[in-house]
């Protein structure tokens, strides 16, 4: 199966990735090959087989008491942020 330019652009948009013009044919080629590779799964007989989401079936997700366990460290955490003002993360204007 071969993916066209529009499909690559649409996937990249869904994934929130900007691609250069030079990247598009590269991903067209490699994603088409990957889709062919995973196409091998079609031949497997899987009727009545339970899908496996993780390797430890029978282990339920644990719950913890709904209590505060973290202390406020926003200043420490926000040191990694590209732009912060008054403890808020800044992004380009969203609402006119």
């Amino acid at each position, binding site marked *: 199966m071969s993916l066209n330019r529009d499909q690559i652009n649409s996937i990249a948009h869904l994934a929130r990735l900007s691609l250069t013009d030079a990247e598009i044919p590269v991903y067209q080629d490699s994603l088409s090959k990957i889709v062919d590779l995973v196409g091998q799964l079609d031949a*497997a007989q899987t009727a009545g087989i*339970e*899908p*496996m989401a*993780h*390797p430890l079936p029978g282990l339920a997700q644990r719950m913890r008491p709904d209590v505060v366990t973290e202390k406020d460290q926003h200043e420490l955490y926000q040191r*990694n942020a*590209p*732009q912060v003002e008054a403890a808020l*993360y800044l992004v380009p204007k969203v609402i006119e």
Partner: protein
Amino acid sequence: MHTFTLAELAKKLRAKEFSVTELTNSLLGRVAASQPKLNAFITVTESEALARAKTADEAFAAGRAGPLTGLPLAHKDIFCTKGVRTSCGSRMLDNFVSPYDATVVEKLDAAGMVTLGKTNMDEFAMGSSNETSFYGPVRNPWDSKLVPGGSSGGSAAAVAARVAPVATATDTGGSIRQPASLCGVTGIKPTYGRVSRYGMIAFASSLDQGGLISISAEDAAMVLNAMAGFDPRDSTSVDTPVPDYVATLNAPLAGLKIGLIQEFFDKGLSADVEKCIREALSVYEKLGATLIEVKLPSLPLSVPTYYVVAPAECSSNLARFDGVRYGYRCQDPKDLLDLYKRSRGEGFGAEVKRRIMTGTYVLSAGYYDAYYLKAQRVRQLINQDFRRAFGEVDVLMGPTAPDVAFAIGAKSSDPIQMYLNDIYTIGANLAGVPAMSIPCGFARGLPVGLQIAGPHFAEAKLLNVAHAFQKETDWHRRLPDAFAKEML
């Protein structure tokens, strides 16, 4: 002192043959000298290491030293280290200084180990050659024109060159075992859920598991003792007791039933690699084990299964990198969408973008059942193959990789060829079972790894089986000529 295993170093420190500070200085010298040749490290934590070495020396002087006190290690740069850059091999996190420690880091710190630095890796652990790192490829210590394998290539190269005696690593589809095989060192991927993933940057959450690369199985047992165990901060951590992995290392192998995975001895396996594997198996026969041929008929579908499941989970996990809260942000974004797209487009490398897009495609409307659900069903078939096999045998064996290390650049333009490197390792991740790679010989002058897999939580058995082989052979003690001398 660089040629000693961790177990030997522990004895020598206790006997005061040298101090932790002397050992740390010696290895920091090797790290610096090896860096232009190997590029195994992204960050060297020299001052922190010397401070911790001093504390360890004080612990020895006061008689408070534990089994791991003062022993050097390196962390794969996927584990968060408080106050130290944690890059995950990516431009996206080149400026990220972790505000907290991963549980693994915290535990090994608490055990008194001395961290030398953070090792190079494929970007976000996506790769089998260490060529996708933003910080450049790692070189194989056995031949600098060759790849060390990946994604834990820096950890494997550092241990192979005896720059660090042990290093943490992670394995999503073979990222501990394949580089261990290509570099001639010991690697263990524990059972899914055995080692905490808190602070270990996520790639594919139903597959990722933290583990180790070391010189010997005995060393791996020592460190795993401190590393494994329940962590309430990791919702996939399993609350089962951790046995003493060192205590059972010397259990006899008489009566051990070894299953040979028939699907692994296929036409894709190099003849001279197969010869090494067969010779290793005969060592086990001499130790009293029985070899039984087993079939895992769905296992050949593990690569296509993985390349649906892993990219799908990666596309979801890596959605967190948005250029807003941490990580790379593009210059002058014109609006929020442009900020997201260009920060991610510029911050991620080519392979990471390929995986994110593959995952986005297989999860997109109309394709979910055909790809993701189908892959989850095939994963179940592969899982059932492993369960059935472990009903008949104690451990499974086969090659870790189809061939020895390949040249840098040889496969980087063809993702499918690259993906096929992991053909023998992915099955254990899909089934969540523990697996190791141990050095078992050389083909064309390059190391070959024997893979050993066991049922869930059988790490003690795997380490015992690996240690028995390492008592009979010295493949794991071989080191490349270029790194044999103490002063590099």
